[in-house]
């Protein structure tokens, strides 16, 4: 028997408004129609009406879960056009900001899923652990979500010796809880029962959908922009791509938690390698006519920016492709044949960002 149901943000347990039309065969998912647009704020129009400086702040508010990735990648594109090499200290500080955001973002995603499978204690625990990151962000950048770390030519925050020591202590405090969360998601039988073999995306289909980020790496696809085309400080940092093979909800969370743990190590390496020097190449560099592409590994995967300038402060064209955009499509494969009750969990397991996709 075929039927169609509609699901909204409350049924899907999403922080953001998104609507699904799901076709069912009996109680199993047979088809999916994603109905986006609620968070469409006309961003591509807005960025053309704002100058390059204003767009630093505007793009940070494209999505607050990956808020640092947008301005830092956008600034990289401008710097490419202007032929500006940012100071080494700024490269490390950009990496610190990106990795801090990655840990907080991954933890939020895992926490929400724990809640969805009835693991209330684990949900609250993951949120408590995330608070260490939230407090660190507020202490160093002055805000818990939007760091305001970037400017054209470098960064606009510094880590004083005091602040660096504080951050190192916070990172130390993250290690044991992150290991503990990993073990829970890996071995706890109750969690495994709900996440292993659920929402599977086979490797071949993953390649066909061109998924990115943890969704891809959970299917054994070895792709991480930080490794494949290192930018900023990443060519000087030691790390390996986190991989899983199963392509299910469990694998995606294990990739995220392993990455969060690795981000802790990346931040520690940045603190160790933080050379003295200027924070910004030039306060107001000349930005000539030109075009550039910049990309980075945002928490949800590869983020690509395209910028064309005409020598004025206003962009002639500014476009970006967010990782969630690629990952939405794979939901059709993941959900196929799954019971209705699993829909919210599987949807959240791709860590969908609606603000990013709807723009």
């Amino acid at each position, binding site marked *: 028997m075929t039927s169609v149901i509609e699901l909204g943000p409350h049924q899907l*347990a999403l922080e*953001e408004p998104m609507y699904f039309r799901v076709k069912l065969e009996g109680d199993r998912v047979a088809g999916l129609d994603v109905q986006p647009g609620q968070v469409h704020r*006309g961003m591509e129009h807005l960025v053309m009406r*704002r100058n390059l400086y204003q767009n630093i702040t505007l793009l940070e508010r494209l999505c607050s879960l990956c808020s640092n990735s947008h301005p830092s990648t956008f600034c990289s594109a401008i710097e490419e056009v202007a032929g500006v090499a940012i100071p080494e200290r700024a490269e490390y500080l950009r990496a610190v900001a990106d990795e801090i955001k990655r840990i907080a973002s991954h933890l939020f995603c895992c926490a929400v899923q724990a809640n969805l499978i009835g693991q209330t204690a684990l949900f*609250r625990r993951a949120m408590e652990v995330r608070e260490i990151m939230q407090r660190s962000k507020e*202490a160093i950048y*002055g805000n*818990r*979500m939007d760091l305001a770390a970037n400017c054209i030519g470098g960064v606009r925050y510094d880590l004083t010796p005091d602040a660096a020591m504080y951050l190192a202590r916070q990172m130390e405090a993250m290690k044991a809880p992150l290991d503990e969360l990993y073990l829970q998601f890996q071995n706890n039988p109750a969690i495994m029962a709900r996440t292993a073999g659920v929402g599977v995306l086979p490797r071949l289909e993953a390649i066909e959908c061109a998924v990115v980020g943890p969704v891809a790496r959970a299917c054994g696809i070895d792709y991480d922009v930080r490794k494949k085309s290192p930018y900023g400080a990443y060519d000087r940092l030691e790390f390996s791509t986190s991989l899983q093979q199963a392509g299910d909800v469990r694998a995606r969370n294990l990739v995220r938690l392993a990455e969060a743990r690795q981000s802790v190590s990346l931040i520690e390496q940045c603190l160790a390698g933080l050379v003295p020097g200027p924070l910004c190449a030039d306060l107001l560099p000349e930005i000539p006519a030109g075009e550039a592409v910049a990309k980075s590994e945002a928490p949800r995967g590869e983020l690509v920016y395209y910028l064309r300038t005409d020598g004025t402060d206003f962009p002639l064209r500014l476009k970006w492709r967010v990782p969630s955009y690629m990952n939405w499509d794979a939901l059709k494969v993941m959900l196929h044949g799954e019971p209705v009750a699993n829909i919210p969990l599987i949807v959240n397991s791709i860590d969908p960002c609606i603000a990013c996709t709807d723009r």
Partner: protein
Amino acid sequence: MQDQVKETPAEPVRLFRINTGSCNGCDVELAVTAAVDEFDVEQLGCRYTEEPHEADILLITGPLTVRARNEALRLYAEAPETKVTVAVGVCPVSGGVFRDSYAVDGPVQRYLPVDLNVPGCPPRPQALLAGIAQARDLWRARSKGVDAVFAAPPLAKPADEPAQQFPIRGRMSFDPKACVDCRMCRHVCAAGAIHFDIKGDKGDRHLRSQSPGSPEGVRLTLWHNSCVFCGLCSHYCPTGALSVTGDWHLAHRGGQTFRFSEQGEVPYTPCSGCGSPLIAVAPELLHAAFRRPTPEIEHIKTLCPACRQQLSIGAVRR
């Protein structure tokens, strides 16, 4: 989000969230007030509900996009007659950075009354709790029918608030004495929060060239309900006239929205050569440019561009 029903003497006040197209910053922080003990709304005698018809307080986030409007208004209408509406973050009341887009239909007060604003981008959980506490008191008064005489109590700053090691980014402050009228702050402000106008004797005009008579000075207005607390203006301000304060105690009643701003006037002084009005160079800029300004520089500083040309090249060049 889970419900946290606990035995409290009074019936908990129920909170319902409406996301009208936010960047999710405010929403993720609201999630913290349901998930993290330290910031749990339970301590205020509140709890979240997933049912609009149970809502006592509506927490609205986002700039009200065109696509989200009907659903948001439907949820608002579904809530009981007696309710309190809280605009969370700067988006709902001004559009924040998203203002002036074809896809944004806000501010929300075009469609529904806003009782309280909690500025921030996003507000920190402490600010959310302070706002929710005010909303709760307002709702309790309103449900007893005493809305008209009810005034929100001034926000008590928690006495035991630990001294911040590093300050948070709160309200912006403006020091007109250091301002040189370069307007770089307005140029970089994504939110359109900074406005300049000329204070003249024949009424205020936006553009200096249109201002008749002798203008008295330049006035900067920074609207806190549009500002997204990014600090970019202060980063690019060459003299430090704009600075970030740590003040996040910003929750206020909806009716005060437009009075909630920072203002300062930079007076014109007469050119010491010809008397035409000019903005004096602030000592802050002079010291940034020349560590120790010479008497000659101090003199040039008091001249208008025409008199400076006269001094340097003996004539005014056209």
